[in-house]
């Protein structure tokens, strides 16, 4: 007897012969065994990067942002590039956890937990850049609107930079709440399986005393749905507001209305690439191939080719507008500073084009979408390409402004500026390694909920029944109750 039904044409979301207990076993195993050598090596490397990043930030705080190669013309260099890049990475997590929940995409269950963890860590990394770019970081709280003794002097609520403060902090808070509320039942599973007292205690605290009561589940479902509904416009708003940082200015190359949708598509594009990078490693290291299947990877590659093409259309539209507007400054920025390969930064524009627009087109082929090595390689390429996109937008628009006498000489970052970026990689991977070791990396309860419709062995049973003659079916099941 089956309560739910899913078409046989759909690929199973969970492969292998699984029952509910096996799902708990598979997903809790990495938490319950000692970490592998590979984990220690990775964790150590991440910590090393983090420490170097902390040192770079220390230098920046002590000596000021002159430590980075920024100057009066290029005021936003690597740091804001990195900020936008990291925020963009975060977007895929929310897309998977929220937007695909509203669209009832079953495949999200396998990857949403880790993707959302990625979102949270990425946003944490992103936040570092604008905060330290302020220069006097100990004054960072001035951006908050609170009654103060300076007047009170309020921040400018009409400024996109303040909108960013609200957008990024709301995004981090809401993602964290969404993620943690989903984790409660799974922490309870780990708690109830725990063999040692310490683990039972720790996961007991983390699980908030979750029992699995039907009423609690009912509220939990309602909560998840509403949080998904809230996160969906939220995630679109976040990158829209990030794009406003540029679009509301009067810098050629930034002053365009296409920015919000173009930035959101780019964010999802780069985020999915990062999800691919992480998931491919996760499924391999923790033996989760049954839960993160080729079907999942293919679905994500489809998103990558779609969003990559949207971004490509945006690039071409910009070039077109650079000509069509007949604005000399726009034309100079787009056709000289960017599209001309032989201009000082032309290499970055064409690097971006090659990585973001041309190379993802290979995912029109099913064989390549379902190839792990190609996917992994492409995920790195897309991440590099999307970093270049932000670099191109920021640096090529800034380095030659309206006044040729203040044109900047060639901008290249210092080791401290690069070290800060590497440091956020350290932070990101330190968090991700800890997450992978101590948290259920796949939503256990959600997998169980789709197991009997989308599990391979259950689909097989249903498939056999469908092919049965009515008489045989009646004979088999007449005494089931």
């Amino acid at each position: 007897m089956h309560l739910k039904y899913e078409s046989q044409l759909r690929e199973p979301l969970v492969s292998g012969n699984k029952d509910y207990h096996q799902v708990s076993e598979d997903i809790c195993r990495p938490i319950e065994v000692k970490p592998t050598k590979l984990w220690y090596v990775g964790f150590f490397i991440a910590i090393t990067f983090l420490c170097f990043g902390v040192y770079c930030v220390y230098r920046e705080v002590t000596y000021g942002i002159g430590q980075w190669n920024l100057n009066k013309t290029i005021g936003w260099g690597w740091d804001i590039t990195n900020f936008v890049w990291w925020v963009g990475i975060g977007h895929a997590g929310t897309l998977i956890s929220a937007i695909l929940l509203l669209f009832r995409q079953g495949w999200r269950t396998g990857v949403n937990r880790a993707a959302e963890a990625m979102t949270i860590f990425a946003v944490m990394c992103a936040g570092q850049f604008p905060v330290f770019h302020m220069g006097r970081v100990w004054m960072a709280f001035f951006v908050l609107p609170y009654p103060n003794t300076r007047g009170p002097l309020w921040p400018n609520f009409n400024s996109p930079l303040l909108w960013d403060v609200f957008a990024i902090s709301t995004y981090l808070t809401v993602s964290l709440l969404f993620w943690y509320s989903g984790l409660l039942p799974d922490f309870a599973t780990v708690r109830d399986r725990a063999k040692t007292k310490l683990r039972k205690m720790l996961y007991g605290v983390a699980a908030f005393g979750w029992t699995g009561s039907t009423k609690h589940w009912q509220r939990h479902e309602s909560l998840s749905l509403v949080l998904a509904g809230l996160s969906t416009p939220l995630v679109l708003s976040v990158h829209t507001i990030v794009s406003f940082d540029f679009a509301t200015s009067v810098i050629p190359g930034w002053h365009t209305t296409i920015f919000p949708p173009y930035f959101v598509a780019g964010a999802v594009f780069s985020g999915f690439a990062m999800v691919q990078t992480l998931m491919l490693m996760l499924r391999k290291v923790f033996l989760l191939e049954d839960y993160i299947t080729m079907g999942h990877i293919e679905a994500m590659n489809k998103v990558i080719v779609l969003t990559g093409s949207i971004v490509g259309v945006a690039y071409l539209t910009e070039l077109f507008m650079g000509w069509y507007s007949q604005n000399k400054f726009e034309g100079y920025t787009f056709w000289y500073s960017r599209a001309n390969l032989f201009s000082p930064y032309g290499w970055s524009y064409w690097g971006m084009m090659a990585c973001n627009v041309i190379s993802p087109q290979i995912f029109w082929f099913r064989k390549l979408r379902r190839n792990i090595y190609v996917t992994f390689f492409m995920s790195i390429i897309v991440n590099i390409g999307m970093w270049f996109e932000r670099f191109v937008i920021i640096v090529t628009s800034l380095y030659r402004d309206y006044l040729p006498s203040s044109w900047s000489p060639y901008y290249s970052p210092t080791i401290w500026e690069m070290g800060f970026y590497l440091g956020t990689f350290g932070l990101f991977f330190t968090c991700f390694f800890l997450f992978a070791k101590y948290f259920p990396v796949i939503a256990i309860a959600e997998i169980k909920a789709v197991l009997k419709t989308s599990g391979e062995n259950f689909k097989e049973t249903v498939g056999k029944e469908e092919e049965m003659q009515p008489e045989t079916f009646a004979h088999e099941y007449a005494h089931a109750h």
Partner: protein
Amino acid sequence: MAKKKFVVGCFDDEAVLFPAVKKVRTAGYKIHDIYTPFPVHGLDHAMGLRETSLHTAGFIYGITGTTTALSGIGWVFTKDWPVNIGGKPHFDLPAWIPITFELTVLFAAVGMVLTFCYLCQLSPFIKKHHFHERATDDLFVMVIECTEKTNSDDLQAFLRTNGAVEVNVQNAEPGWWLGLYGKEDQLIRDTQVVA
């Protein structure tokens, strides 16, 4: 506090659980709760539980956020410290939309999660009675409250014939840490059972 007696029946398949819920309820027993490892759709209806109104609370928190943002920024920019920004109007509503939206979402999300934790009595360092440790793994644990009239042996046998793979009797202190609902949540008069 006096301890209460509960009969616990564990099921390993939700397809067996649904008819059992129906039978237990028609037999007149009071289901205290069913603990499941994942959300079983339709089980709340089968138990006759009221729909949750958490989303309504979320809406109220949301509009609180909207009002806070609009009135706060409005007060600052028109009354407290009107700044001339490029000759633009002081009451500059379109420019306030982003922050207003963010605060709406923030208030709704934070408020809902706190309300959720309050209603379900979830917090760190809380002690609850767990009827079966496999309720978060692979068992659907039906807990039936015993009154003076209940013959627990009969009830156990009844659960067994309805497909329970494991039955037992447990004593637990009644109180909110059991996860008891308010009176209005246990609407037994709604007897339409969906299975």
